[in-house]
C-alpha cells in the first residue's frame, strides 16, 4: 500500500508495428499499461498514474499523474505508431512530471517500456540513472521487442545506477505465446517490491495461470468482479422471470382480471427488486436492455402459446401484453388493468359518454381551436344525438320486450 506517483513511458516507435507479440507489440504494450494502471490505483486509492509517449513527433506527456483511470484509458486510444524512441528525454520528462506532482508525500516511480533499440551511450544512461537515484526516484524497465545484447547491457547498467535498495527492477520479456501483460503480472513491477502483492495482482496471476477455462461465464470474477456479478444476477433474474411468466400463463388460461392484476403486480414487484439489484452494479444499462429483450421474447412466446391453445382467450392475450409491456410502472399497469376490466364489464360505456351531449360540448369547448358555433361541429353533434337516441330506443324496447 505504498503511496506512489507513477509515470509510464510508452514506446510508440516504428518497431512497435511488429506482430511477434500478439496482436502487435504496441497493442500488447497498451494492454500491459492498462493493467498496471488498474493495479496501482487499486493498491492505494491515493496513488496517481501518468502516461507519456517517447516516440512519434517527440516526447509528449499524454496525462499528468492522476488517479482517474478513465482519463488514462481514454488517452490510450488513437495513439499513432511511428518515429524513433528517445529514452533519455523520455525519462527526464517523466522525472519532471513527477517533480510537479500535487501530493509531495507520494514516492516517485517511472515505468519504462523499452521495445526499440537504445541509441544512447551507456555513460549517458548511467548519469541519468544516478540523477534519478539522487532524487529518490525508482525506475522499472520492461525490456521487450527488439532483442540485442547491447540494448540489454545498457538497460542493465541503467538499472544498476538507479537501484537503491531493490526499489527498481528490470524485466526481460521475450516474444512468445504468453501475452506481455500475463508475464508482467508475476513480476515485482506488479507485486510492488514483495510487500505481499495486491489482491489484484495475485488473483490476476492465478487467473492467468489457470487460463480462461473453468469460469461460469467465461469471465474471471477476480479480473472483473462487477461484470461477473452482473452476469450472474441477470441469469438469476431471467430464471425467476421465466418462472413467473410460466406461472402467469398457467393462471391466465384458468382465470382473468384479478389474477392478471396479481400477476402484473407480482411481475412489477419483481422488477422493482431487479432494478434495485441492477442499480447496485455498474452495468445497469446492460441489465435493463437484456431484460427488455427477454421480455419481448417471452411476450412473443406467450402470445403464440396462448393463440395456439385457446383462440377464445385472444382478448386476454391483449391484456397480458399490455400488463407485460407496462411492468416498469406498476401504477400504470394497475390503471390499465382497471380500464380493461371496466371495458369488459360495460362495452357501451364509451358510447354512452359520447352520447351525453352536454358533456361532449363541454369537452369540445375545452379543446383549443374548436368553435362550438361552427356548423360542421353542430352537424356532428346532431348526428351523434340521433344515434344515441336510437340506441336508447333499442334499449327501452328490449326492456319492454322483457
Amino acid at each position: 500500500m505504498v503511496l506512489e506517483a507513477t509515470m509510464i513511458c510508452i514506446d510508440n516507435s516504428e518497431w512497435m508495428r511488429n506482430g511477434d507479440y500478439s496482436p502487435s507489440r504496441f497493442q500488447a504494450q497498451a494492454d500491459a499499461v492498462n493493467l498496471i494502471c488498474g493495479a496501482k490505483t487499486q493498491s492505494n486509492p491515493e496513488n496517481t498514474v501518468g502516461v507519456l509517449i517517447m516516440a512519434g513527433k517527440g516526447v509528449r506527456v499524454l496525462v499528468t499523474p492522476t488517479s482517474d483511470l478513465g482519463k488514462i484509458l481514454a488517452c490510450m486510444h488513437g495513439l499513432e505508431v511511428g518515429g524513433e524512441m528517445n529514452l533519455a528525454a523520455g525519462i527526464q520528462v517523466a522525472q519532471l512530471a513527477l517533480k510537479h506532482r500535487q501530493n509531495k508525500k507520494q514516492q516517485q516511480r517511472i515505468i519504462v517500456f523499452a521495445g526499440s533499440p537504445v541509441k544512447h551511450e551507456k555513460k549517458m544512461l548511467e548519469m541519468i540513472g544516478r540523477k534519478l537515484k539522487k532524487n529518490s526516484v525508482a525506475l522499472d524497465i520492461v525490456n521487450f521487442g527488439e532483442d540485442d545484447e547491447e540494448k540489454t547491457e545498457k538497460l542493465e547498467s541503467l538499472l544498476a545506477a538507479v537501484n537503491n535498495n531493490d526499489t527498481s527492477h528490470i524485466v526481460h520479456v521475450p516474444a512468445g505465446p504468453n501475452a506481455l501483460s500475463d508475464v508482467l503480472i508475476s513480476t515485482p513491477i506488479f507485486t510492488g517490491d514483495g510487500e505481499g502483492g495486491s489482491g489484484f495482482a495475485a488473483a490476476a496471476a492465478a487467473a492467468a495461470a489457470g487460463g480462461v477455462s473453468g469460469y461460469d461465464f467465461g469471465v474471471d470474477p477476480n479480473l472483473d468482479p462487477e461484470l461477473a456479478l452482473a452476469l450472474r444476477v441477470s441469469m438469476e433474474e431471467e430464471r425467476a422471470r421465466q418462472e413467473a411468466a410460466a406461472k402467469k400463463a398457467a393462471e391466465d388460461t384458468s382465470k382473468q382480471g384479478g389474477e392478471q392484476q396479481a400477476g402484473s403486480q407480482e411481475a412489477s414487484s419483481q422488477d422493482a427488486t431487479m432494478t434495485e439489484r441492477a442499480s447496485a452494479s455498474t452495468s445497469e444499462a446492460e441489465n435493463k436492455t437484456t431484460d427488455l429483450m427477454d421480455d419481448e421474447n417471452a411476450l412473443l412466446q406467450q402470445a403464440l402459446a396462448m393463440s395456439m391453445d385457446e383462440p377464445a382467450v385472444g382478448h386476454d392475450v391483449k391484456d397480458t401484453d399490455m400488463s407485460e409491456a407496462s411492468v416498469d410502472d406498476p401504477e400504470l399497469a394497475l390503471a390499465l388493468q382497471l380500464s380493461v376490466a371496466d371495458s369488459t364489464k360495460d362495452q357501451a360505456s364509451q358510447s354512452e359518454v359520447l352520447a351525453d351531449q352536454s358533456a361532449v360540448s363541454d369537452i369540445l369547448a375545452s379543446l383549443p381551436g374548436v368553435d362550438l358555433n361552427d356548423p360542421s361541429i353542430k352537424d356532428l353533434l346532431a348526428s351523434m344525438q340521433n344515434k344515441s337516441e336510437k340506441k336508447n330506443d333499442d334499449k327501452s324496447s328490449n326492456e319492454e320486450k322483457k
Partner: protein
Amino acid sequence: MACLHDHSCEDHDCSSDWSLYKHIDLDKVSALNEATTGTVKSVFKAWEHRLNTSGEHLESNEGDPELLVFIPFTSDVKIKSISIVGGADGTSPSKMRAFINRDGIDFSDAQSMQAIQEWDLAENMQGVLEYQTRYSKFQSVGNITLHFPDNFGGDTTKIHYIGLKGEATQLKRDVVATIVYELMPNPSDHKTRAETGGGFSHVE
C-alpha cells in the same frame, strides 16, 4: 566534554540547551542522496553523544557530496544556532544552506532557490563549533531543510550529528488535523443554533 565557551561549564549544563532534537518529528525526517535510506534519523541525538562516531551516521552516495536533509518539528520552534559534526578526511560538509517551512524541496529547487541563510562550515571534529542564525528569521519554524552542497574534498559527505539550539513553542503550524468526510449529511451532526437554544432567526 569540552565546551569552549569563555566561561566555565560547571554552572550550566550544555546538553539542556541543545535539546531541540526532542521536538523533531523523527518519523517524517527524510534526506535526499543518502547512501542508505533511513540513516538520517541517527544524526539527531543528545548533545552528549555528538562525538559518538561508532553507530550509524548519514553518508551521501559515492562520488556525490551533496546532501539534503528535511527536518519537520512537532510544534513551531525558534532556532538560535546549529551545530554540525562531520566526518574525517575531508568528508565534512563545507557549506550549509537553510530553507524554512518549505515542503518537498529537491536538489534542483535547492540550487535555484534563495536560501534563508547560508554558512561556511569548518571541520568540527570536537563538536564545539556552533553557527548562529539570524534569529529574527527563525522565529516560527515548522520545518527546516538543510542543503549541504559541498565538502572538503572527500568522495562522500559524512555527518555524525546535527544539533539545534533554541526554544520550542506550543504552537502548531497550519495543521488540518481532523477532517471528517461526509458521504451524506447526518442531521444529528449539524445542530443548528435554534435547536440548541439561542439565535434570533428561524425559518417558518
